[in-house]
């Protein structure tokens, strides 16, 4: 392989690269080997530590925890997308009394740490007499406020990156501003920004793990609970390994869906030259 950064390797460079490859491999193997050795040495691979996770009841609880994570993710994702679109439209409004509050809202909620938002929901609001804030609501509202604000910026950047002619053509054929936005600009912006939007969805999925700190019953919370069962030797590392595999799997699955959608939309564009774009973009935003 060659790139602009280096010449196609000659015989000498090939030999040197081989040596470097072997060295890298040795270093990586040494790091992984050391970690595994420490795990084995401190007895993390004893059957006793993993026994807990072979019980059907424990497995069911873990499945429920995955369900809890996914339901928080799905709810927050849908609400964030809606909030993001609303805020983006608000910011692009010609009326200052709409655009200025929307700007303040996005800037404020992008600057406050997500965990603090969740804590305000879960620990703060009940002291003001707001009833019925479950950890689920705290997690979803926190995720929605933060990611909605981030997505608003993404949508706005997408809409502003479109050629001006699109908007002008829409007005020229007599569409109202709202129709120009929803049926001409937004579909194209979503298509242009799809990779960023999906990346943000992965962030939402990962950030559901913060629910652990506000006692939401998700994967990490269960992992800590099982990990501290003393009669099974406090298998905290096995629990962390299991949680890690689940999270990486879920995120890679989401990234795979994203790649599939992207390739599909690109194909559509080539065949239909953009005429079917609104349909495809609309269905993608709903996912």
């Amino acid at each position, binding site marked *: 392989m060659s790139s602009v950064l*280096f010449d196609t390797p000659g015989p000498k460079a090939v030999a040197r690269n081989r040596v470097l490859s072997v060295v890298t491999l040795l270093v990586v193997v040494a790091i992984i080997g050391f970690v595994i050795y420490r795990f084995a040495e401190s007895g993390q691979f004893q059957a006793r530590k993993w026994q807990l996770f072979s019980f059907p009841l424990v497995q069911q609880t873990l499945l429920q925890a995955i369900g809890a994570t996914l339901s928080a993710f799905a709810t927050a994702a849908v609400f964030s997308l809606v909030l993001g679109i609303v805020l983006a439209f608000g910011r692009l409004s010609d009326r200052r009394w709409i655009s200025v509050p929307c700007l303040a809202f996005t800037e404020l909620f992008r600057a406050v740490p997500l965990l603090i938002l969740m804590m305000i929901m879960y620990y703060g609001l009940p002291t003001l007499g707001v009833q019925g804030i479950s950890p689920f609501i705290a997690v979803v509202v926190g995720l929605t406020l933060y990611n909605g604000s981030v997505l608003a910026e993404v949508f706005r950047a997408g809409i502003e990156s479109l050629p001006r002619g699109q908007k002008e053509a829409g007005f020229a054929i007599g569409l109202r501003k709202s129709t120009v936005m929803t049926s001409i600009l937004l579909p194209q912006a979503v298509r242009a920004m799809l990779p960023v939007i999906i990346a943000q969805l992965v962030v939402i999925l990962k950030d559901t793990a913060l629910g652990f700190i506000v006692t939401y019953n998700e994967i990490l919370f269960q992992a800590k609970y099982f990990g501290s069962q003393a009669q099974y030797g406090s298998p905290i590392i096995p629990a962390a390994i299991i949680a890690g595999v689940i999270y990486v799997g879920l995120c890679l699955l989401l990234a795979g869906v994203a790649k599939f959608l992207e390739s599909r939309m690109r194909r559509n564009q080539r065949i239909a030259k953009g005429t079917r774009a609104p349909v495809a973009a609309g269905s993608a935003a709903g996912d």
Partner: protein
Amino acid sequence: MNTLLNNLDLFTTGFQNTLILFFFSAIFALILGTIVAAMRVSPVPAMRAAGTFYVNTVRNTPLTLVLFFFALGYPKLGLPEISFMTAAIVGLSLYTATYVAEAIRSGINTVPVGQAEAARAIGLPFSQSLRLIVLPQAFRAVIPPMFSVFIALLKNTTVAAGFSVAEAGAIRANLSERGEPAMAGLLWVALVFVVLVFLLSLLQRYFENKWKVAR
């Protein structure tokens, strides 16, 4: 206001720890991230593979889980003991380094092809053309995304509060022990973060102007 003034000691130590976490994690993440980015564009296939594997794995793991491992799992391994603070710095650096690496890699791609070609033409090997020609320009191009990464890091330090580090995110728990209203304390913490993020974006604008790429 009273909540803030009566517990100023809590707030100052909390944000002091937050800033320590932020400062050290940012430096380590910057160093590690640059190395990983260089590995990912290097001519050695094994280095590229190792860099890609690291970035893809850690980026798909929640920060909470990374800190969970270092704060709760690491002490069980029978290795030299480290404080929760150090564990949090290690976790945050390893996590943020992947984002730094991706930012720098995208910056390397924005450097005009002619620059790297010219470097090769005058006979510079890969390490020199990267170090002397490409990276200095890439760094300037990625100031905005790099600062987004650092702002995210600043906000992510609050996660360490869940793992026994007495920083800004832990102020609430300490306040409620003193019987202070939780909401007022949390709002003050949020306000300070808004100010800190604002300061960082001012710094970003300063660097953007100072290191504007003349093209």
